[in-house]
């Protein structure tokens, strides 16, 4: 196995609340991403997907575990030492309107990473910016447009151009299309897919659209209440899910002529997590031991990892 581009081991994030209480947004996440790999991250709103994205790029410090990028442990290195690595990992936000500084033109926004990373200046900088905008399908007339003069899809294209400016090897996409119109979503997704193929990017694609993840990612991790509950090849996990939560997620996708079956109940409050398996209060198959013991991720017969007492399997080897 080649050195993973991104490696997370036992990654966790706990926020301190008042009166000594804590909320664990992410816990015990193990991930390995080889160069060029595509990992989809799915789960309900509030399950910690976005927090995990920020942890992976060290935009927020982890409170447990380690992350390494291209063999360098970046869990705690100072921001100054991280700067050269920042060039190689970028993020695309959910809402392009908020992700662009309203005071910067599209050209200035795309130029910023190049200036910060000292990759181009003067005429070369202008040429690079124009080429990047052209790559995302925006003509030179957009250079001097402000975000408020752009449509949602155009703004997301500017964000993509900005993220590509430093030629990253890893892209984290935090629901990149959920703030866009349906017709624009398809365009952007198609564009992202070609982009990955041509640039050989590795990505972590966060979404709650299971069909999109299946299409764009070879591997999928399903998160529930800050933990990965099922992980493996997209076709296996989404085609033959083993964890009751993944099954419920799949059943909740509406299909023509069929009423969607949502998982019963509400996602639990992360400040007061349920005992044992976090999913047990909503699980149709829950047994007494689910209330007391938290299941670990184990390798099932299909070869992918599942955290469920009811799925027989062997302990997963540590990354």
């Amino acid at each position, binding site marked *: 196995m080649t050195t993973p581009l991104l490696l997370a081991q036992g990654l966790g994030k706990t926020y301190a609340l008042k009166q000594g209480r804590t909320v664990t947004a992410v816990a015990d996440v193990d991930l390995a991403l080889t160069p060029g790999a595509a990992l989809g991250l799915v789960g309900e709103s509030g399950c910690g997907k976005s927090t995990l994205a920020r942890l992976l790029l060290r935009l927020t410090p982890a409170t447990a575990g380690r992350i390494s990028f291209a063999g360098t442990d970046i869990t705690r290195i100072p921001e100054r030492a991280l700067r050269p690595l920042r060039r190689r*990992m970028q*993020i695309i936000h959910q809402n392009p309107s908020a*992700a*662009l500084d309203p005071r910067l033109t599209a050209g200035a926004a795309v130029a*910023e990473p190049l200036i*910060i990373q000292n990759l181009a200046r003067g005429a070369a900088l202008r040429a690079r910016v124009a080429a990047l905008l052209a790559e995302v399908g925006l003509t030179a007339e957009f250079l001097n447009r402000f975000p408020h003069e752009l449509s949602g899809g155009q703004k997301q294209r500017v964000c993509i151009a900005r993220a590509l400016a*430093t030629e990253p090897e890893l892209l984290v996409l935090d629901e990149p299309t959920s703030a866009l119109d349906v017709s624009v979503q398809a365009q952007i997704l198609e564009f992202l897919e070609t982009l990955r193929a041509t640039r050989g990017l590795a990505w972590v694609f966060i979404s709650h659209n299971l069909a999109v993840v299946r299409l764009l990612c070879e591997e999928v991790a399903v998160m529930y209440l800050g933990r990965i509950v099922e992980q493996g090849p997209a076709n296996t996990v989404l085609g033959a899910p083993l964890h009751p939560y993944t099954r419920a997620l799949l059943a909740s996708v509406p299909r023509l002529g069929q009423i969607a079956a949502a998982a019963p109940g509400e996602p639990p409050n992360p400040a007061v997590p349920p005992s044992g398996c976090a999913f047990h209060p909503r699980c149709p198959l829950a047994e007494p031991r689910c209330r007391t013991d938290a299941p670990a991720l184990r390798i099932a017969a299909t070869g992918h990892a599942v955290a469920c007492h009811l799925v027989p399997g062997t302990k997963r080897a540590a990354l």
Partner: protein
Amino acid sequence: MRARLAVHLVRRSFGTMLGLALVAMIIALALLGPFIVPYPDDVLGAVNLTNKLQPPSAAHWFGTDEVGNDILTRVIIGARLSLLVGIAIPLAAALIGVPLGILAGTAGGGLREAIMRLTDLFLSVPGLVLAIALVAALGPGIGNAMIALILVWWPGYVRIAESKALAIREEPFIEAARAAGASQVRILWRHVLPNSLSPLIVKMSMDIGQAILAIASLGFLGLGAKPPTPEWGAMISIARGYLPDWWWYAICPGALIYASVLGFNLLGDGLRDILDPRSNRG
């Protein structure tokens, strides 16, 4: 497109147009003053006792003062000092307050507490009272009056800059800049400051009028400009002794103080409609 919207907003509003006209008048008086005044010799107080305390006439439109100087001349020249002070005080206050506020808003923790509690300390004392105390300690004079007013004025800017910085630092575009490797200084200078500017510019334009009023108040109390410097507040202070018989003496500088404060306030209000439409109007 934006500029045209701004022009439209200004022209639609009578208040903004009036403010613009009054401010333009004050600026014109300040710039052209020495060239248009009828009696240039009276600017620094020529003594001409035979002409003292004359009522308004064709020769002296607003009459003469107690030493025979043309009141119109002195009031027009007074616009220079008032405008200069009115602009310098908010500007200097903003230069102190804005960096502190942005620092407090982005740094958080103990530094923020320290800056904000110091700000509260200053804000808890009525501004003019504190200024009077400071001038009393520093000694009267226009320079000390300005220093005192700047010291009174900066906390307001800390408050606004801090609240803006607090909101902006959570924006995804700040995170995007961090993801690109931007340093803290770059984020503050390039993203937080430009996005905090609108309410600060609005406050500064409103404060120009307040500063003109404050410096006139100190002049009136004898703590600001000293006669024979043609300063509106100091002129009213002397004119007070000649009320009500020589009423035009006090009316003339008073009207100019009124016009300039009103003008800058209306203009600030109009600027707010253009630059900062979402802020709640107090």
